[in-house]
């Protein structure tokens, strides 16, 4: 796990590669191409790149229109603006089931310095509520490549939640199938279900917990919708306790999706959601912000240790 690369950088590269393979792929941005990294695609395929200017709502509906002409549009801006154009995503794209992909970057509180106005902590909650939406949160650069390729193969809307900062690339080859969880570490005391850049944090936390005699499984739930319910129930049974960890509000995100599975299946096991606890983000260095919101490795390990003790 030595090499690092930002997921948004991998997103731009993956789009460019996909553009090479499939001439139906078009990309739209709203004046953030050098931040979302769609510029990598734009430089290679200027004819298939459309800048909407600072007009996110129009970008989404233009993508809807392009999809009806047989193209596969990827529309990108900051994840926080997915909320701004929720109506266009809902009514313009998802209601008719159009084939549009949303590559939304700078998600979560690790956006850091720009502050709470720009830190999307509710985008997954919004997207989960739309019928027919697929939601993928890749954990590293390699998984981002696979997610982009998979998104293009799905017929219908897909939301890709992408992080801003350089993050470690997992050395081992991991399988990737939409809707299928990856078990990265087996364990018997508690199952930690997570996604995105929290995956690496949770693996580190599990290592620390092992030293204290707590055996934590770590599951990369890269697809939040449709959720791998079978995996949730399997770990509920084998570990008897589940913790979810997400760089998102604990309301409406991965934690609620997992908790919903447990409730519906009358699975009365100890369960805890680690994430942003119903508050807005704020400015700060990303690591400092993570620590403030209890999402750094030490805080996550401490929370899980306490949870395991109370099991």
């Amino acid at each position: 796990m030595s090499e690092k690369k930002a997921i948004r950088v991998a997103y731009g590269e993956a789009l460019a590669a996909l553009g090479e393979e499939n001439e139906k792929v078009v990309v739209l941005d709203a004046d953030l191409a050098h931040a979302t990294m769609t510029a990598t695609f734009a430089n290679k395929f200027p004819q298939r790149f459309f800048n909407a200017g600072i007009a996110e709502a129009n970008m989404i509906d233009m993508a809807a229109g392009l999809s009806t002409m047989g193209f596969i549009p990827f529309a990108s801006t900051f994840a926080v603006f997915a909320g701004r154009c929720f109506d266009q995503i809902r009514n313009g794209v998802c209601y008719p089931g159009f084939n549009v992909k949303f590559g939304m970057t700078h998600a979560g509180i690790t956006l850091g310095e720009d502050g709470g106005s720009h830190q999307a902590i509710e985008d997954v909650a919004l997207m989960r509520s739309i019928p027919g939406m697929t939601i993928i949160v890749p954990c590293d650069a390699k998984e981002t490549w696979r997610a982009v390729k998979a998104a293009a193969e799905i017929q219908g809307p897909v939301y890709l939640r992408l992080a801003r900062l350089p993050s470690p690339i997992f050395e081992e080859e991991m399988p990737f199938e939409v809707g299928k969880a990856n078990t990265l570490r087996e364990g018997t005391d508690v199952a930690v279900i997570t996604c995105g850049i929290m995956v690496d944090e949770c693996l580190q936390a599990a290592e620390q917990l092992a030293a204290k005699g707590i055996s934590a499984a770590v599951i990369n739930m890269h697809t939040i919708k449709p959720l791998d319910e079978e995996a949730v129930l399997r770990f509920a049974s084998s570990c008897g306790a589940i913790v979810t960890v997400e760089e998102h509000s604990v309301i409406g995100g991965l934690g609620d999706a997992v908790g919903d599975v447990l409730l519906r299946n009358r699975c009365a096991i100890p369960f805890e959601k680690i994430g942003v606890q119903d508050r807005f983000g704020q400015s700060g260095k990303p690591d400092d912000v993570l620590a403030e919101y209890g999402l750094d490795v030490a805080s996550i390990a401490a929370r899980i240790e306490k949870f395991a003790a109370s099991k």
Partner: protein
Amino acid sequence: MTNEALTLKCRQLRRDIINMTADAASGHPGGSLSIVEMLACLYYNTMNIDPANPRWEDRDRFVLSKGHSAPALYAVLADKGFFPREELKNFRQLHSILQGHPDAKKCPGVDASTGSLGQGISIAVGMAIGAKLAGKSLQVYTICGDGELQEGLVWEASMAAANYKLDNLTVFVDNNGLQIDGTNDQVMSLGDLNAKFTSFGYQVVEVADGNDLEQVQAALDVKHETGKPKLILCHTVKGKGVSFMENQVGWHGKAPNAQEREQALAELEG
């Protein structure tokens, strides 16, 4: 189609609108009646479509940006044969292909799902960009309401239409002057629409009477300038053709009762 035949068609479409909204006991007759001539010129004269093959790739596209005027669109689509006329009776009923607002997933001949105002024109812009990218010579048409112009998205889409030089896009504005809460001026003044759209980069064609078939057709036939989207600003009468509905704010989203239906149909005979 001859002007005489088209005039008769328009009367029939208006009767369909009255019957659909009366049967459903809901819907939007006022704004449906004001766009009948635009739809008639498009669907019977101008647009290149094939009702037997609604997904034909090279067809001209139509987006009803003012989606609440769905009864007018459904009446035309049924008459063209996109679906059987009997379907009109199911307007707004459970499991119907004729939803309260156009649903591209359910209804043949509907190219985009609209109803959330401002979105249709933006989707039409995307279609026009896509047509050019695909090297297709097809045309994209859309109708916006005047109240709809209060949505910021209309102006975002208009900026993009000029920026991308969409000379394959024609936008109609149904300027009947009324919206739910009153006149445009009472709610939110629209100002000089011709000047606004001209400054946004459209080729603007103004139609003094947007309920006059010859005038609407003449505007459609005006040569489309190269490199510019075209906007046809139609001054219309909301509720056109039914005396007690004409220019009445109250008939935006109200269905006629049995007696009102009878009177309306009597006025629209022939």
